[in-house]
Every structure is written in C-alpha cells, then in structure tokens.
C-alpha cells in the first residue's frame, strides 16, 4: 500500500490490443482493449485463466511482442543509468547453464555495458538479499528450482530498473516452496522499493501479494474487475486466514464465473 508517487502512474496502458495470426485458428484476438495504470512503488497482480492473454500483455510491456493497437507508456526518471527500465522474471528461471550464479546475475551488466566493478558489488548485494550468499560460484544445475528462481530475480534487479515484470514467477515450483517464495518476494519488494507487476493464475497468490488485483477475463482478455485486498502490511502466512483475504478471493472467483458450477476455469 505504497503512498509514494501518487502524481503520475509509472505504467500507463490505454486501449491496448493484440491480434495475431495462428495456423489453426486464423486471426486470434488475444487482448481486447485493455486499460489500466500502475503507480510507482505499487505491487499489482494481474490474475486470469490460462490462455487469457495475460502473458501477451506482459510481453508487450517488456518490449518483446509488438502491440496491434492502443498505447502504453513507462515513465522513467532522467537519472536511470540505462535505457532498460524493466526487469523481467519468467515462469522458468531461464538461467544460462554455462554461467555461475554471479555471472548469470551480471548478464544485464554485460548487455547494457555497465561499470563492471560497481555491477559486481551490486550483484553480490542482491545475491545476499535473496538469500543465495555462498552460492555465487555455483552453476544453475547445482541449485534447486527455488534457488534458480531467486537467481532469476537478482538478474532482473541488477540494472536497478524501477519496474519488475513477473510472469508466474513461482508457477513451476511446488506449493510449499511457492508460499515461502511469495513471502520472500514481499520482503525483497519492500527492501528494493520497486514497482512490481506480476501475472498469475492463482487467485490466492494474487490477493496475498498485491496492493491491487486486476482480474482478466477469458480470451480475448479484458480487465473485468479491480480489487484492493484489505490486508495490512507486512503480510505473512497468517494474512491468508483473515476474513478480508477470504472475501477478496471469493469476489475474484465470482467474477471469473467460478461459483462451483462452471467448469470453464482450469487454474
């Protein structure tokens, strides 16, 4: 519930659409016009059924996929050291297996030609922040899935981007690791003071993490609801048992047509 930066949204999306050509289905409408904003320092989750176009939306924001129409803007202050204002975390860690934890973390420094000494110092701080200290020289194959995803987070944070974009970052982990990674993520978010835009198909995860949850419909994706869970920060596992948590989850579930009769939702 950050009250910083209430002047201007850091992410602004207006009437964004995406249509692509598929071999089987012809022209596919992945995104209906989508509009929303994210304030600086805010933690926003986008929740929706699989295949609703939420990953496409994230890839448009990350500059990986071209939009079909509409507009989006990412505000950045002038003092940013690089042209890259986002850090991206995928569902899988996407670490380079021939690089150690330290050198995977340093990848953005090489791409963006940052000062090597300063970058390495920052990398070591980030590795400590996510709890990987002592594993700087380990290779990804020597790490567990959760540890690999921690390294993916250090890499996304290395160039100090104001915005962290996360696409189901813990979706590939087992439920127990996933819960503890979410608590960790909130801690990292609080310490690094980033704006986080996270995509998930887990309603409870979205409610647990977010200042604000955007609910997306089935394809073509539209934003059909926006919820501010009334949970105090810092949150921990106990937050999940409060009435406010249950209320927010129930409301999103209803919005997605999951009232116990519909079988359309596979998340």
């Amino acid at each position, binding site marked *: 519930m950050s009250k910083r930066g209430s002047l201007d949204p850091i992410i602004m999306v207006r009437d964004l659409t995406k249509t692509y050509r598929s071999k089987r289905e012809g022209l596919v409408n992945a995104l209906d016009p989508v509009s929303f904003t994210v304030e600086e320092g805010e933690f926003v989750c986008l929740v929706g059924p699989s295949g609703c176009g939420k990953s496409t939306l994230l*890839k448009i924001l*990350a*500059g*990986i996929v071209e939009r079909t129409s509409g507009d989006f803007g990412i505000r950045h202050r002038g003092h940013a050291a690089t*042209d*890259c204002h*986002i850090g*991206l975390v*995928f569902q*899988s860690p*996407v670490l*380079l*297996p*021939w*690089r*150690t934890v330290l*050198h995977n973390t340093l*990848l*953005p420094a*090489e*791409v*963006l030609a940052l000062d090597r000494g300063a970058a390495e110092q920052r990398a070591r701080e980030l590795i400590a922040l996510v709890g990987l200290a002592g594993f700087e020289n380990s*290779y990804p*194959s*020597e790490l567990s899935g959760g540890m690999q995803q921690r390294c993916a987070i250090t890499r996304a944070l290395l*160039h100090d981007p104001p915005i962290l*974009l996360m696409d189901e970052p813990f979706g590939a982990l087992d439920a127990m690791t996933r819960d503890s990674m979410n608590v960790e993520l909130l801690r990292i978010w609080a310490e690094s003071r980033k704006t986080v835009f996270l995509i998930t198909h887990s309603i409870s995860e979205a409610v647990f993490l977010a200042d604000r949850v955007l609910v997306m419909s089935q394809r073509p994706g539209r934003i059909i609801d926006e919820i501010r869970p009334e949970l105090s920060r810092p949150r921990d596992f106990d937050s999940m048992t409060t009435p406010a948590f249950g209320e927010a989850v129930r409301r999103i579930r209803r919005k997605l047509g999951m009232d116990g009769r519909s079988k359309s939702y596979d998340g």
Partner: protein
Amino acid sequence: MTGEANVKAPIKTRHERSFGARLRRLIDAGLGFLVLCALVALIEAIVRVFAVPSYVFPAPSEIVKALYSGFAESIFSRSAYYMHITTTAIEALASFVIGSSLGVVVGALIIQFSLLRRIVLPYFIGLQSVPKVALAPLFVVWFGLGISSKIVLGVLLTFFPLMINTAAGLASVERERLELMQSLKASGWKTFRLVKLPSALPFIFAGLEMAAAYAVLGAVVGEFVGGTSGLGVLILNRNAVLDVAGSLAALIILAVMGIGLQRAVVAARVRVLFWAPSQDILVD
C-alpha cells in the same frame, strides 16, 4: 570479458570420481584388452592352422612385423611411415580446421541473415546429399597431386556437418533466452555472443565429432585418386605388390589417427560443455 572466459573446469572432474569407480574403469579396460588379445590370438591360430597365404590374409604377427619395419627405417626413407603419416596428418588436420571454421561461420551467417538463408540454404541442403568424394578426381585435376587437392576435398566433407549443425543449434535456442535478451534491449551481436553461440555449442561439438572422421576420410580418398605421399598412397603401393600385411599396417595407423582426432574433440567437449548433459556413451 566474454561469457566463455567464465567457463571453468568440469563440475565433476575425473579426480573426484570415487576409488571404486576408478577401479571398475581399470578392470573394464583390462578386460577389453584381454578380449582383443584373445581375438588376435584366434586369428593367428586360424591363419597358421589352415595355412592361409599371406597375400590373402596375413597373420597378425606379420602385420606387427610390417609395422615395426616401417617405423624402424630412417625417417627420410620413402618406405618408412614417417613421411606418409606427416602428409596425411597435415591434410586431415588442415581439412578439419578450415572446413569446420568455414562451416561454423557460414552456418552462423545463414541463421543471422534471413535473406541469405532463404536464398542460399536450399542449395546447401541440396549439395549436402551429393556424394562429395565423387569430386575427388576433379580436385586432383584442378589442384594437383600435392596436399591441396586432398585438403579441398576434406574441407568440403567437414564443412557440411558443421554448417548444418551450427545452423540447427542457433535456430533451436530456447525462445525465452532470446526474450530475456530482448527485454534487455540487447543488440543482435550481443545476443549472438552471450546466448545464441554458447547455446549452440552442443550441436557444434556433435558436428566436430563427425568432421573428425570426415577429415581423415577426405585425406585418404584424395590420396587414392592421385597423390605422391600419404597413408592412402602407401596402402595402394603395398596392395600393388600383394603386401597385404603392409596395407593393414597402414590401415591401423589410419585408425589410430582417426580415433586420436575424435578423442581430442571429445576431450575438448567435456571441458567446454561441462554444463551440458553428456551424450558420450563411453562416459557414464
């Protein structure tokens, strides 16, 4: 400075293997050698018992004698092996280095520039199915009886596996790795150097192993068609005087050469690709 500079020794080195595992390998090797010895002894016995003439099939002891006399002669003698070995080794190594390098470069260019791929790749794929050794007589006409005609043939043979494998490796890089680089607004060259080329290395090394065999093949076929020295020439000369033992002795040297080059590639792969799952059926 580069990603490659970070590549260190394999995670699990030979020295870290347990004593038991090393003992087992030693026993395996010993048993394998015993089987070989038994086989050789069996052939020796059959040849002697049935009095097979040496111009049909020589006893293994004859081959060993031929090998010995070939190496015992003066280094500069024409009937000694040294000059022939040097010629063939230079041809094979030069073919391997030049052909593989060209293959990697062309394979990379073809993937990096889609215009080139669309225009040139169909021809390369068509050429790949042409039996290239059939060109050996032409190469002797065009490039002479010296080593250059053999190197051209070897280059042609080693080029294709590397070109195709490099292209396949670069084309099959995990999409998310490329998206990661895109999100960092990486240039094409940085994406190539930091992600695509290292990701393609397992394919490139598979190509190099094929090329190691093709390089020796190119040298020998070239020498068969027309040459003045080399192990291929030696085999023809020995055959012409019905010295089958001498032919087989030269063949054994060729085999050692081919195996040596192939094992060198494997050793390089184990060092460089310590991070990739091993495909070597000899290393468990």
